[in-house]
């Protein structure tokens, strides 16, 4: 009896292992050099190789509601490759992993599509669309009607010669309205060749300004997105998707609603639904020492409407839009100071905040950065939340 059960067990195990070996054979990473760290740096400093997965998962809103999502997860340098299909299951991250590359680098970005754990009836492929890439090639543009998309259990390596500096975005473009509403959205930014020089008292810059006028002390990605919970629930429950009725009620910064935005934890978003995987890793609490120059890399990938973000008491100097330095062809600056930035989906702005404008301070001071579409300051039914974060300046 025992022996028979053992035999059955072993044969089941054998079938399982064989089946896995077959189905996982297609995960592959293309990189011309050995990857040396989890950031994707390689033996050649001019070559960076990252590996991300596209899968489903769950995120937790600031009011505690757990929502079904699609998302990317960073698995760079994770080995063995064939285990990624297991370890990255339900690991959709909101927002997508931050991607930071240097101008002029060669960037190999491998995307592995995982099957949808909660929607095995879907066979959706995924893509990466580097939003704003100048002189793009369709094969690496990720817009599926003009390009190729990678099916579940397989990998596609995108190749980019990293273009000029600035704040871009990336997202999946497959069935764009659905996959973007579901959360496959992230910030991608490029640092300039000028970094490392000493100009205007700074060594890091938003752009190749040649005069240090875009220099900064600290930078923060601020991506505004929003979620319609009914759409996500319909998706989970295999219901027709409400495209026409889409109305977002969870306005977010970097995938979180206030007050989660100021929670410094990088492991929010765990729930029983996603096997307690931290799905919301990016805090948006902006911390500075008095005198610091802050660079906010603001972008919007909201799927329904325009949002205005205001910093009422700390003026913002806009130095770049859509990954372009605000400078005329004759070389004159077109920078401007403002307290508000209005962005539709797919727009970005690089703004500098000079923390010394408030005058010397004796104790930490708190400022707010929030949407002035005041009805969006909520987490669905819960007021006092939504698209808001804080800037804390210490003496």
């Amino acid at each position: 009896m025992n022996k028979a059960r053992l035999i059955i067990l072993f044969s089941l195990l054998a079938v399982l292992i064989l089946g896995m070996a077959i189905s996982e054979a297609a995960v592959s990473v293309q990189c011309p050099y050995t990857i040396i760290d989890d950031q994707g740096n390689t033996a050649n400093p001019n070559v960076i190789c990252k590996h991300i997965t596209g899968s489903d998962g769950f995120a937790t809103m600031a009011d505690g509601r757990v929502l079904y999502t699609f998302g990317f997860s960073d698995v760079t340098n994770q080995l063995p490759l064939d285990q990624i299909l297991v370890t990255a299951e339900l690991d959709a991250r909101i927002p997508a992993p931050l991607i930071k590359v240097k101008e002029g680098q060669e960037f190999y970005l491998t995307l592995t599509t995982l099957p949808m754990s909660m929607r095995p009836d879907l066979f959706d492929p995924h893509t990466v669309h580097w939003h704003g890439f100048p002189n793009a090639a369709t094969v690496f543009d990720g817009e599926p009607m003009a390009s190729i998309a990678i099916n579940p259990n397989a990998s596609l390596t995108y190749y980019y010669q990293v273009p000029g500096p600035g704040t871009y975005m990336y997202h999946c473009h497959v069935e764009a309205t659905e996959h973007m509403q579901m959360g496959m959205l992230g910030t991608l930014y490029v640092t300039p060749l000028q970094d490392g020089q000493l100009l205007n008292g700074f060594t890091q810059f938003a752009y190749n300004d040649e005069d240090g006028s875009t220099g900064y002390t600290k930078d923060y990605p601020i991506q505004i997105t929003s979620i319609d919970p009914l759409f996500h629930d319909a998706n989970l429950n295999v219901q027709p998707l409400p495209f026409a009725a889409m109305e977002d009620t969870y306005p977010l910064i970097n995938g979180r609603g206030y007050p989660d935005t100021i929670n410094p934890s990088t492991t929010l978003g765990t729930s029983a639904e996603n096997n307690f995987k931290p799905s919301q890793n990016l805090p948006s609490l902006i911390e500075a020492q008095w005198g610091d120059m802050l660079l906010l890399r603001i972008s919007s990938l909201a799927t329904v409407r325009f949002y205005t973000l205001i910093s009422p008491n700390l003026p913002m100097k806009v130095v770049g839009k859509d990954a372009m330095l605000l400078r005329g062809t004759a070389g004159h600056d077109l920078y401007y100071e403002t307290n508000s930035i209005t962005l539709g989906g797919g727009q970005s702005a690089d703004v500098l905040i000079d923390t010394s404008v408030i005058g010397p301070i004796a104790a930490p001071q708190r400022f707010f950065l929030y949407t002035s579409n005041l009805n969006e300051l909520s987490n669905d039914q819960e007021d006092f939340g939504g698209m808001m974060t804080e800037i804390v300046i210490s003496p």
Partner: protein
Amino acid sequence: MREEIMMIKKINIMEALVILALVFLFGVQQADAKIYGISGPTFNLRAMKGNIIADDGKSIFMWGFANASTARVRFQYPGPTLIVNQGQTVTVNLTNTLPVPVSIVFPGQNNVNAVGGVPGMLTREAPPGGSVSYTFAASEPGTYIYYSGTRPELQVEMGLLGALIVRPAAITTPAGFAGCAYNTVDSCYHREYLQLLTDIDHTIHDLVLLNKTANVDNTIAYPVYWFINGRAGLDTVAKNFAPYLPYQPYSAMARMHPGEKILVRMIGGVRDLHPHHMHGNQHYVIARDGRILKGPAGEDLSEGLFTTTVAPGQTTDALFTWTGENIGWDIYGTTSHTCNPGPDNFDPVTKEYCPNHGKPLPVGLPDQNDLTFGIFYSGSPYIGSPGALPPGEGGLNPTAGLFFMWHSHNEKELTTNNIFPGGMMTWASVEYPSVILPAE
């Protein structure tokens, strides 16, 4: 739609080279690549009813302006694109066959003189069965909108709007260019395209059709149809005057060759703002509302963007170019061709960026079984050389151009009444240099 696309002349590399040689031998000039419209300075428009077909097959009842100077006056959406020259005295005669008064306002035109009809709130109106006449001097070149000034919150929604283009008079188009947007050489272009973005709440149209206009409540207007040049989704890439869209004559597709300067005239209509995103490259906004973005001393105030906010009633002119510079591999593939760099490192004939010449694609592409293919994917990453595709895949890109989606990035608007894909999306294509593109 498939038939329309397939009518594009299919040209392989060898034929292309032969045509290229012929072009050089006989000095054949390619026709101008201008926006289709009707030329002034006198226009006869008729306000009339009609129907359009959205890409979900729904027939939507509309009101629109039609060109009354043709033998067979036909409703169209949007209204005819009116094209005049700077300095001309423009006259627009409007006759009204609708059961409500209709008028036209011309934002951006000064001293419009209205004659006839009856007085209205914004301008004189043509009563039902009547007519009115507007005259103005087109003093400034640029892109403008015109629309009904009578109950515009209803009548613009119903379709009574169109584009007005004023061509500059104080510049001679430089050799090789098709025209100039303004009286400056840096606004000259090889091709120009219109992107008129509108939205529709079809329930309003249903009420008007049922003579229940009094029940229209704009406070609850909720558009679920989005259009570029009056067409939605894949319909936007069908050619001008595609027979299956008899009342939506204007294509929105932007075809080009590498290196060409493309003028994109963006106009917002109706009620919402749309972030219009162009795949392929960043573009430069050179003018808004028919005024070039230059400072008092002529300094360039143009703005480089990858997504332009198109606001209702506002126009934006942008220049777009795709060169493939720094792509890192040979855009024409590794089959035999030459690259003879000019001073800017581009081959002046093939427009190839020579530092990339001969470089293979740096990565291998996955097995075809692991890929999903787009209908506009030629089967290869290279311009002008299609690759093998599995049966039934691709097929709508016979010239093997690179296709780039131009679309509203408020992604909800990429749907047509609850169906994805649809709505406010179209494509640009970058074609092999010898592929002959339509003149209009």
